[in-house]
Protein backbone atom coordinates (compact mmCIF):
# COMPACT_ATOMS: atom_id res chain seq x y z
CA UNK A 1 0.00 0.00 0.00
CA UNK A 2 3.05 2.26 0.29
CA UNK A 3 3.06 2.67 -3.43
CA UNK A 4 -0.60 3.55 -3.33
CA UNK A 5 -0.02 6.24 -0.78
CA UNK A 6 2.54 7.84 -3.06
CA UNK A 7 -0.13 7.99 -5.62
CA UNK A 8 -2.86 9.57 -3.69
CA UNK A 9 -1.97 12.94 -2.39
CA UNK A 10 -1.83 13.10 1.32
CA UNK A 11 -5.44 12.95 2.32
CA UNK A 12 -6.83 15.22 4.93
CA UNK A 13 -8.52 13.95 8.04
CA UNK A 14 -11.86 14.80 6.49
CA UNK A 15 -11.11 12.68 3.47
CA UNK A 16 -10.10 9.79 5.66
CA UNK A 17 -13.31 10.11 7.59
CA UNK A 18 -15.24 10.14 4.37
CA UNK A 19 -13.52 6.94 3.35
CA UNK A 20 -14.43 5.29 6.62
CA UNK A 21 -18.00 6.28 6.04
CA UNK A 22 -17.88 4.70 2.59
CA UNK A 23 -16.83 1.40 4.04
CA UNK A 24 -19.57 1.34 6.58
CA UNK A 25 -22.05 2.35 3.95
CA UNK A 26 -21.02 -0.19 1.34
CA UNK A 27 -24.57 -1.51 1.27
CA UNK A 28 -25.79 1.89 0.26
CA UNK A 29 -24.14 1.80 -3.15
CA UNK A 30 -25.96 0.76 -6.24
CA UNK A 31 -23.12 -1.22 -7.66
CA UNK A 32 -19.51 -0.54 -8.64
CA UNK A 33 -20.27 2.32 -11.00
CA UNK A 34 -22.10 4.18 -8.27
CA UNK A 35 -19.18 3.62 -5.92
CA UNK A 36 -16.71 4.80 -8.54
CA UNK A 37 -18.75 7.93 -9.08
CA UNK A 38 -18.71 8.68 -5.37
CA UNK A 39 -14.97 8.05 -5.18
CA UNK A 40 -14.37 10.28 -8.17
CA UNK A 41 -15.93 13.18 -6.30
CA UNK A 42 -12.95 13.19 -3.96
CA UNK A 43 -10.74 14.24 -6.86
CA UNK A 44 -12.65 17.50 -6.96
CA UNK A 45 -12.15 17.95 -10.68
CA UNK A 46 -14.40 17.99 -13.70
CA UNK A 47 -15.31 14.40 -14.51
CA UNK A 48 -13.76 14.93 -17.93
CA UNK A 49 -10.40 15.61 -16.35
CA UNK A 50 -10.56 12.82 -13.88
CA UNK A 51 -7.53 10.64 -13.34
CA UNK A 52 -8.73 7.15 -14.03
CA UNK A 53 -5.48 5.73 -12.76
CA UNK A 54 -5.96 7.50 -9.47
CA UNK A 55 -9.58 6.40 -9.40
CA UNK A 56 -8.58 2.79 -10.00
CA UNK A 57 -6.16 3.07 -7.09
CA UNK A 58 -8.87 4.48 -4.86
CA UNK A 59 -11.29 1.76 -5.81
CA UNK A 60 -8.80 -1.05 -5.30
CA UNK A 61 -7.77 0.37 -1.99
CA UNK A 62 -11.38 0.61 -0.96
CA UNK A 63 -12.14 -2.93 -1.99
CA UNK A 64 -9.06 -4.21 -0.21
CA UNK A 65 -10.06 -2.53 3.00
CA UNK A 66 -13.60 -3.78 2.79
CA UNK A 67 -12.35 -7.30 2.21
CA UNK A 68 -9.88 -6.91 5.11
CA UNK A 69 -12.80 -5.93 7.31
CA UNK A 70 -14.44 -9.17 6.23
CA UNK A 71 -17.42 -7.39 4.74
CA UNK A 72 -19.03 -9.45 2.05
CA UNK A 73 -18.79 -7.78 -1.33
CA UNK A 74 -21.08 -8.62 -4.20
CA UNK A 75 -19.42 -10.32 -7.12
CA UNK A 76 -19.73 -7.36 -9.45
CA UNK A 77 -17.57 -5.24 -7.13
CA UNK A 78 -14.86 -7.86 -7.39
CA UNK A 79 -15.23 -8.12 -11.14
CA UNK A 80 -14.80 -4.38 -11.37
CA UNK A 81 -11.76 -4.61 -9.08
CA UNK A 82 -10.17 -7.18 -11.34
CA UNK A 83 -10.88 -5.08 -14.39
CA UNK A 84 -9.47 -1.94 -12.79
CA UNK A 85 -6.36 -3.82 -11.68
CA UNK A 86 -5.89 -4.89 -15.26
CA UNK A 87 -6.50 -1.36 -16.50
CA UNK A 88 -4.07 0.02 -13.97
CA UNK A 89 -1.30 -2.30 -15.11
CA UNK A 90 -2.00 -1.41 -18.73
CA UNK A 91 -1.90 2.29 -17.92
CA UNK A 92 1.37 2.03 -16.05
CA UNK A 93 3.24 -0.16 -18.50
CA UNK A 94 4.25 0.95 -21.96
CA UNK A 95 2.15 -0.77 -24.64
CA UNK A 96 3.61 -3.88 -26.17
CA UNK A 97 4.50 -3.29 -29.79
CA UNK A 98 1.91 -4.78 -32.11
CA UNK A 99 -0.60 -5.26 -29.32
CA UNK A 100 -4.15 -5.81 -30.51
CA UNK A 101 -7.33 -4.41 -29.07
CA UNK A 102 -8.15 -1.03 -27.60
CA UNK A 103 -5.47 0.96 -25.86
CA UNK A 104 -5.47 1.47 -22.14
CA UNK A 105 -6.28 5.12 -22.77
CA UNK A 106 -9.40 4.11 -24.72
CA UNK A 107 -10.55 1.95 -21.87
CA UNK A 108 -9.86 4.67 -19.34
CA UNK A 109 -11.68 7.21 -21.49
CA UNK A 110 -14.66 4.92 -21.71
CA UNK A 111 -14.81 4.54 -17.96
CA UNK A 112 -14.64 8.29 -17.58
CA UNK A 113 -17.44 8.60 -20.13
CA UNK A 114 -19.61 6.14 -18.22
CA UNK A 115 -19.10 8.06 -15.01
CA UNK A 116 -19.83 11.37 -16.65
CA UNK A 117 -22.94 9.95 -18.28
CA UNK A 118 -24.26 8.44 -15.06
CA UNK A 119 -23.59 11.67 -13.25
CA UNK A 120 -25.33 13.64 -15.99
CA UNK A 121 -28.38 11.35 -15.89
CA UNK A 122 -28.58 11.83 -12.13
CA UNK A 123 -28.45 15.57 -12.56
CA UNK A 124 -31.19 15.66 -15.14
CA UNK A 125 -33.26 13.19 -13.12
CA UNK A 126 -33.07 15.65 -10.23
CA UNK A 127 -33.94 18.54 -12.53
CA UNK A 128 -36.87 16.57 -13.91
CA UNK A 129 -38.25 15.83 -10.48
CA UNK A 130 -37.77 19.43 -9.45
CA UNK A 131 -40.03 20.56 -12.27
CA UNK A 132 -43.56 21.69 -11.62
CA UNK A 133 -45.66 18.57 -11.55
CA UNK A 134 -49.29 17.98 -12.30
CA UNK A 135 -51.26 17.39 -9.16
CA UNK A 136 -48.60 19.12 -7.09
CA UNK A 137 -47.82 22.47 -8.67
CA UNK A 138 -50.35 22.79 -11.42
CA UNK A 139 -53.75 21.29 -11.91
CA UNK A 140 -56.17 20.16 -14.53
CA UNK A 141 -59.81 21.14 -14.59
CA UNK A 142 -61.24 19.76 -11.39
CA UNK A 143 -64.75 19.48 -12.66
CA UNK A 144 -64.73 18.37 -16.26
CA UNK A 145 -68.14 18.89 -17.78
CA UNK A 146 -69.83 15.86 -19.15
CA UNK A 147 -73.43 16.79 -18.63
CA UNK A 148 -74.91 15.53 -21.82
CA UNK A 149 -77.61 13.10 -22.78
CA UNK A 150 -75.57 11.68 -25.57
CA UNK A 151 -73.50 8.85 -24.29
CA UNK A 152 -71.25 6.89 -26.56
CA UNK A 153 -69.52 3.81 -25.31
CA UNK A 154 -65.94 3.28 -26.28
CA UNK A 155 -63.96 0.25 -25.34
CA UNK A 156 -60.39 0.74 -24.54
CA UNK A 157 -57.41 -1.39 -23.74
CA UNK A 158 -53.75 -0.65 -23.61
CA UNK A 159 -50.89 -2.68 -24.93
CA UNK A 160 -50.07 -3.40 -21.32
CA UNK A 161 -53.52 -4.93 -20.79
CA UNK A 162 -53.07 -7.01 -23.88
CA UNK A 163 -49.70 -8.32 -22.83
CA UNK A 164 -50.88 -8.98 -19.29
CA UNK A 165 -53.79 -10.98 -20.66
CA UNK A 166 -51.50 -13.03 -22.81
CA UNK A 167 -49.05 -13.50 -19.99
CA UNK A 168 -51.93 -14.64 -17.82
CA UNK A 169 -53.03 -17.25 -20.31
CA UNK A 170 -49.53 -18.51 -20.88
CA UNK A 171 -48.74 -18.61 -17.19
CA UNK A 172 -51.91 -20.53 -16.58
CA UNK A 173 -50.76 -23.01 -19.16
CA UNK A 174 -47.59 -23.56 -17.20
CA UNK A 175 -49.57 -24.43 -14.15
CA UNK A 176 -52.13 -26.61 -15.85
CA UNK A 177 -51.80 -30.02 -14.23
CA UNK A 178 -50.36 -32.81 -16.26
CA UNK A 179 -53.20 -34.22 -18.29
CA UNK A 180 -53.51 -37.97 -17.94
CA UNK A 181 -53.89 -40.21 -20.82
CA UNK A 182 -57.30 -41.35 -19.70
CA UNK A 183 -57.52 -44.20 -22.13
CA UNK A 184 -55.14 -46.33 -20.10
CA UNK A 185 -56.29 -45.34 -16.67
CA UNK A 186 -58.88 -47.23 -14.68
CA UNK A 187 -60.16 -45.15 -11.79
CA UNK A 188 -61.06 -46.39 -8.36
CA UNK A 189 -64.59 -45.09 -8.82
CA UNK A 190 -64.96 -47.22 -11.92
CA UNK A 191 -63.57 -50.25 -10.11
CA UNK A 192 -65.87 -49.69 -7.16
CA UNK A 193 -68.90 -49.55 -9.41
CA UNK A 194 -67.81 -52.67 -11.17
CA UNK A 195 -67.07 -54.69 -8.08
CA UNK A 196 -70.35 -53.75 -6.48
CA UNK A 197 -72.12 -55.18 -9.49
CA UNK A 198 -70.05 -58.35 -9.34
CA UNK A 199 -70.49 -58.96 -5.65
CA UNK A 200 -73.59 -61.05 -6.08
CA UNK A 201 -71.62 -63.50 -8.18
CA UNK A 202 -68.75 -63.92 -5.75
CA UNK A 203 -68.59 -67.44 -4.36
CA UNK A 204 -65.65 -68.98 -2.57
CA UNK A 205 -62.31 -67.28 -2.10
CA UNK A 206 -61.02 -66.10 -5.43
CA UNK A 207 -58.06 -64.12 -6.68
CA UNK A 208 -58.56 -60.39 -7.07
CA UNK A 209 -56.75 -60.43 -10.41
CA UNK A 210 -59.40 -62.74 -11.84
CA UNK A 211 -61.85 -59.85 -11.55
CA UNK A 212 -59.93 -57.50 -13.86
CA UNK A 213 -62.14 -56.34 -16.70
CA UNK A 214 -61.76 -57.58 -20.19
CA UNK A 215 -59.03 -55.85 -22.16
CA UNK A 216 -57.23 -54.68 -19.02
CA UNK A 217 -55.33 -57.79 -18.12
CA UNK A 218 -52.84 -58.02 -20.96
CA UNK A 219 -51.11 -54.68 -21.59
CA UNK A 220 -48.80 -53.98 -18.61
CA UNK A 221 -49.83 -50.32 -18.33
CA UNK A 222 -53.51 -51.08 -18.32
CA UNK A 223 -53.06 -54.09 -16.08
CA UNK A 224 -51.18 -52.01 -13.53
CA UNK A 225 -53.80 -49.33 -13.50
CA UNK A 226 -56.74 -51.71 -13.30
CA UNK A 227 -55.14 -53.80 -10.55
CA UNK A 228 -54.40 -50.75 -8.45
CA UNK A 229 -57.91 -49.43 -8.93
CA UNK A 230 -59.52 -52.73 -8.03
CA UNK A 231 -57.26 -53.20 -5.05
CA UNK A 232 -58.23 -49.78 -3.73
CA UNK A 233 -61.88 -50.57 -4.44
CA UNK A 234 -61.93 -53.83 -2.51
CA UNK A 235 -60.11 -52.23 0.40
CA UNK A 236 -62.88 -49.70 0.49
CA UNK A 237 -65.47 -52.44 0.34
CA UNK A 238 -63.73 -54.39 3.12
CA UNK A 239 -63.83 -51.27 5.24
CA UNK A 240 -67.54 -51.07 4.68
CA UNK A 241 -67.82 -54.71 5.69
CA UNK A 242 -68.99 -55.90 2.28
CA UNK A 243 -66.11 -58.27 1.48
CA UNK A 244 -63.44 -60.24 3.28
CA UNK A 245 -59.82 -60.27 2.18
CA UNK A 246 -56.94 -62.56 2.92
CA UNK A 247 -53.39 -63.01 1.79
CA UNK A 248 -51.19 -65.92 2.87
CA UNK A 249 -47.89 -64.07 2.60
CA UNK A 250 -46.36 -60.96 1.08
CA UNK A 251 -46.84 -60.82 -2.69
CA UNK A 252 -49.11 -63.84 -2.57
CA UNK A 253 -52.37 -63.53 -4.52
CA UNK A 254 -54.99 -61.45 -2.74
CA UNK A 255 -58.07 -63.55 -2.15
CA UNK A 256 -61.51 -62.16 -1.58
CA UNK A 257 -65.09 -63.24 -1.04
CA UNK A 258 -68.37 -61.58 -0.31
CA UNK A 259 -69.16 -61.32 3.38
CA UNK A 260 -72.00 -63.53 4.62
CA UNK A 261 -75.22 -61.59 4.58
CA UNK A 262 -75.19 -59.24 1.61
Amino acid at each position, binding site marked *: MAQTDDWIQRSSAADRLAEEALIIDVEGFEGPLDLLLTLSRTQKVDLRRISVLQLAEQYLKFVNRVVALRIELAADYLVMAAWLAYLKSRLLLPPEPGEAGPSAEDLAAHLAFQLERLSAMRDVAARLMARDQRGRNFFARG*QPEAASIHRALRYDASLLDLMRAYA*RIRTRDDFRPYAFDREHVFTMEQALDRMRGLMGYMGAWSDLTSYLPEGWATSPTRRRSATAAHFAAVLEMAKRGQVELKQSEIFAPLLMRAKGEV
Partner: protein
Amino acid sequence: MDPAELSLFSAPPMGEQERMVEAVLFASSEPVTLFDLQRRMPQGCDPAEALAHLRRRYEGRGVHLVQIGPAFAFRTAPDLGHLMLKETVETRKLSRAAIETLAIVAYHQPVTRAEIEEIRGVAVSRGTVDQLLELNWIRLGRRRMTPGRPVTFVVTETFLDHFGLESARDLPGLKELRAAGLLDSRPLPDMTAAPDEDDSAPSDQSDLFED
Protein backbone atom coordinates in the same frame (compact mmCIF):
# COMPACT_ATOMS: atom_id res chain seq x y z
CA MET B 1 -48.03 47.79 13.65
CA ASP B 2 -50.22 44.87 14.58
CA PRO B 3 -50.21 41.69 12.49
CA ALA B 4 -53.65 42.26 11.00
CA GLU B 5 -52.65 45.61 9.68
CA LEU B 6 -49.39 44.22 8.35
CA SER B 7 -51.13 41.51 6.38
CA LEU B 8 -53.61 44.02 5.10
CA PHE B 9 -50.83 46.03 3.68
CA SER B 10 -49.18 42.99 2.18
CA ALA B 11 -52.32 41.70 0.43
CA PRO B 12 -51.53 40.96 -3.23
CA PRO B 13 -52.81 43.40 -5.87
CA MET B 14 -56.30 42.78 -7.21
CA GLY B 15 -54.99 41.40 -10.52
CA GLU B 16 -53.12 38.78 -8.58
CA GLN B 17 -56.17 37.98 -6.46
CA GLU B 18 -58.15 37.52 -9.63
CA ARG B 19 -55.60 35.00 -10.88
CA MET B 20 -55.86 33.12 -7.61
CA VAL B 21 -59.63 32.87 -7.74
CA GLU B 22 -59.44 31.84 -11.37
CA ALA B 23 -57.02 29.01 -10.61
CA VAL B 24 -58.90 27.78 -7.56
CA LEU B 25 -62.26 27.70 -9.32
CA PHE B 26 -60.69 25.94 -12.30
CA ALA B 27 -58.98 23.21 -10.30
CA SER B 28 -61.65 22.58 -7.71
CA SER B 29 -63.82 19.55 -8.19
CA GLU B 30 -66.80 21.35 -6.69
CA PRO B 31 -68.16 24.87 -6.69
CA VAL B 32 -66.22 26.98 -4.19
CA THR B 33 -67.83 29.22 -1.58
CA LEU B 34 -66.69 32.72 -0.81
CA PHE B 35 -65.72 31.55 2.63
CA ASP B 36 -63.55 28.81 1.17
CA LEU B 37 -61.84 31.28 -1.16
CA GLN B 38 -61.17 33.60 1.73
CA ARG B 39 -59.64 30.78 3.70
CA ARG B 40 -57.35 29.71 0.89
CA MET B 41 -56.12 33.12 -0.18
CA PRO B 42 -53.57 35.18 1.72
CA GLN B 43 -54.88 37.34 4.50
CA GLY B 44 -56.29 40.67 3.48
CA CYS B 45 -57.59 39.45 0.12
CA ASP B 46 -61.04 40.36 -1.09
CA PRO B 47 -62.33 37.34 -3.02
CA ALA B 48 -65.75 38.93 -3.57
CA GLU B 49 -64.23 41.77 -5.53
CA ALA B 50 -61.89 39.41 -7.38
CA LEU B 51 -64.91 37.30 -8.32
CA ALA B 52 -66.73 40.32 -9.66
CA HIS B 53 -63.75 41.23 -11.85
CA LEU B 54 -63.36 37.69 -13.02
CA ARG B 55 -67.03 37.37 -13.86
CA ARG B 56 -66.82 40.42 -16.07
CA ARG B 57 -63.67 39.13 -17.70
CA TYR B 58 -65.41 35.91 -18.73
CA GLU B 59 -68.53 37.63 -20.02
CA GLY B 60 -69.15 36.53 -23.59
CA ARG B 61 -66.34 33.97 -23.48
CA GLY B 62 -66.60 30.22 -24.07
CA VAL B 63 -66.93 29.61 -20.35
CA HIS B 64 -68.76 31.67 -17.76
CA LEU B 65 -68.32 32.21 -14.10
CA VAL B 66 -71.60 31.23 -12.51
CA GLN B 67 -72.98 31.26 -9.02
CA ILE B 68 -74.52 28.04 -7.74
CA GLY B 69 -76.20 28.63 -4.42
CA PRO B 70 -73.57 30.12 -2.17
CA ALA B 71 -70.71 28.88 -4.36
CA PHE B 72 -68.97 29.72 -7.62
CA ALA B 73 -67.78 27.67 -10.59
CA PHE B 74 -66.87 27.88 -14.27
CA ARG B 75 -69.41 26.50 -16.70
CA THR B 76 -69.48 26.14 -20.45
CA ALA B 77 -71.41 28.93 -22.16
CA PRO B 78 -74.89 27.52 -22.78
CA ASP B 79 -74.80 28.26 -26.51
CA LEU B 80 -71.75 25.99 -26.91
CA GLY B 81 -73.30 22.98 -25.22
CA HIS B 82 -73.54 21.20 -28.54
CA LEU B 83 -69.74 21.00 -28.69
CA MET B 84 -69.75 19.04 -25.46
CA LEU B 85 -71.88 16.25 -26.83
CA LYS B 86 -68.87 14.21 -27.78
CA GLU B 87 -67.32 14.86 -24.44
CA THR B 88 -69.41 12.12 -22.95
CA VAL B 89 -67.72 9.28 -24.70
CA GLU B 90 -67.51 6.71 -22.02
CA THR B 91 -64.44 4.61 -22.01
CA ARG B 92 -64.80 1.16 -20.73
CA LYS B 93 -62.19 -1.48 -20.25
CA LEU B 94 -62.58 -4.55 -22.38
CA SER B 95 -63.78 -7.59 -20.51
CA ARG B 96 -61.23 -10.13 -19.50
CA ALA B 97 -62.61 -12.60 -22.00
CA ALA B 98 -62.35 -10.06 -24.80
CA ILE B 99 -58.83 -8.93 -23.99
CA GLU B 100 -57.65 -12.52 -23.70
CA THR B 101 -59.25 -13.45 -26.96
CA LEU B 102 -57.71 -10.42 -28.58
CA ALA B 103 -54.30 -11.30 -27.18
CA ILE B 104 -54.57 -14.82 -28.55
CA VAL B 105 -55.55 -13.58 -31.98
CA ALA B 106 -52.66 -11.12 -31.92
CA TYR B 107 -50.06 -13.65 -30.84
CA HIS B 108 -51.31 -16.65 -32.78
CA GLN B 109 -52.93 -15.24 -35.88
CA PRO B 110 -54.37 -16.59 -38.07
CA VAL B 111 -56.29 -18.55 -35.48
CA THR B 112 -59.63 -20.33 -35.50
CA ARG B 113 -62.27 -20.10 -32.85
CA ALA B 114 -61.59 -23.67 -31.77
CA GLU B 115 -57.93 -22.85 -31.30
CA ILE B 116 -58.76 -19.79 -29.22
CA GLU B 117 -60.92 -21.98 -27.04
CA GLU B 118 -58.18 -24.53 -26.72
CA ILE B 119 -55.67 -21.90 -25.61
CA ARG B 120 -58.01 -20.12 -23.21
CA GLY B 121 -59.38 -23.42 -21.92
CA VAL B 122 -62.95 -22.10 -22.04
CA ALA B 123 -65.55 -21.50 -24.68
CA VAL B 124 -65.43 -18.15 -26.46
CA SER B 125 -68.82 -16.52 -26.55
CA ARG B 126 -70.18 -15.15 -29.76
CA GLY B 127 -70.57 -11.74 -28.11
CA THR B 128 -66.87 -11.54 -27.39
CA VAL B 129 -65.86 -12.17 -30.97
CA ASP B 130 -68.57 -9.86 -32.25
CA GLN B 131 -67.38 -7.10 -29.99
CA LEU B 132 -63.83 -7.38 -31.27
CA LEU B 133 -65.09 -7.46 -34.84
CA GLU B 134 -67.21 -4.40 -34.20
CA LEU B 135 -64.27 -2.53 -32.71
CA ASN B 136 -62.51 -3.44 -35.93
CA TRP B 137 -59.61 -4.84 -33.96
CA ILE B 138 -59.95 -8.30 -35.49
CA ARG B 139 -61.25 -9.41 -38.83
CA LEU B 140 -61.79 -12.66 -40.67
CA GLY B 141 -58.70 -14.11 -42.25
CA ARG B 142 -58.39 -16.87 -44.77
CA ARG B 143 -60.21 -20.10 -44.16
CA ARG B 144 -58.08 -22.88 -42.75
CA MET B 145 -57.56 -25.68 -45.28
CA THR B 146 -58.66 -28.35 -42.84
CA PRO B 147 -61.90 -30.33 -42.65
CA GLY B 148 -64.79 -27.99 -42.18
CA ARG B 149 -62.67 -25.14 -43.58
CA PRO B 150 -63.04 -23.06 -40.40
CA VAL B 151 -62.64 -19.31 -40.61
CA THR B 152 -59.62 -17.76 -38.99
CA PHE B 153 -59.20 -14.44 -37.22
CA VAL B 154 -56.40 -11.95 -37.65
CA VAL B 155 -55.79 -8.49 -36.20
CA THR B 156 -56.43 -5.35 -38.21
CA GLU B 157 -54.58 -2.17 -39.04
CA THR B 158 -56.86 -0.40 -36.60
CA PHE B 159 -55.60 -2.74 -33.92
CA LEU B 160 -51.97 -2.02 -34.73
CA ASP B 161 -52.75 1.66 -34.79
CA HIS B 162 -54.49 1.62 -31.45
CA PHE B 163 -51.73 -0.28 -29.73
CA GLY B 164 -48.94 1.63 -31.41
CA LEU B 165 -47.49 -1.36 -33.18
CA GLU B 166 -45.95 -1.50 -36.58
CA SER B 167 -46.78 -5.14 -37.01
CA ALA B 168 -48.02 -8.00 -34.88
CA ARG B 169 -44.42 -9.20 -34.83
CA ASP B 170 -43.60 -6.29 -32.57
CA LEU B 171 -45.55 -7.82 -29.73
CA PRO B 172 -43.18 -8.74 -26.95
CA GLY B 173 -42.44 -12.40 -26.37
CA LEU B 174 -42.96 -14.20 -23.12
CA LYS B 175 -39.37 -13.71 -22.03
CA GLU B 176 -39.70 -10.00 -22.47
CA LEU B 177 -43.02 -9.96 -20.66
CA ARG B 178 -41.29 -11.58 -17.76
CA ALA B 179 -38.36 -9.22 -17.94
CA ALA B 180 -40.77 -6.31 -17.88
CA GLY B 181 -42.34 -7.74 -14.76
CA LEU B 182 -45.62 -8.61 -16.39
CA LEU B 183 -45.53 -12.22 -15.39
CA ASP B 184 -45.66 -13.58 -11.92
CA SER B 185 -42.28 -13.97 -10.42
CA ARG B 186 -43.28 -17.35 -9.07
CA PRO B 187 -40.87 -19.92 -10.39
CA LEU B 188 -42.40 -21.63 -13.33
CA PRO B 189 -41.28 -25.21 -13.69
CA ASP B 190 -41.96 -25.38 -17.40
CA MET B 191 -40.34 -22.15 -18.45
CA THR B 192 -36.81 -23.41 -18.69
CA ALA B 193 -37.97 -26.43 -20.56
CA ALA B 194 -39.15 -24.57 -23.64
CA PRO B 195 -37.09 -21.43 -23.93
CA ASP B 196 -37.16 -21.02 -27.65
CA GLU B 197 -40.90 -21.33 -27.72
CA ASP B 198 -41.07 -18.30 -25.47
CA ASP B 199 -38.95 -16.24 -27.65
CA SER B 200 -40.42 -16.90 -30.98
CA ALA B 201 -43.92 -16.39 -29.71
CA PRO B 202 -44.96 -13.45 -31.82
CA SER B 203 -43.06 -14.17 -34.98
CA ASP B 204 -43.28 -17.84 -35.68
CA GLN B 205 -46.74 -18.33 -34.42
CA SER B 206 -48.28 -17.46 -37.70
CA ASP B 207 -47.69 -21.00 -38.87
CA LEU B 208 -48.24 -22.57 -35.51
CA PHE B 209 -51.53 -24.07 -36.46
CA GLU B 210 -50.98 -24.26 -40.15
CA ASP B 211 -50.81 -28.03 -40.48
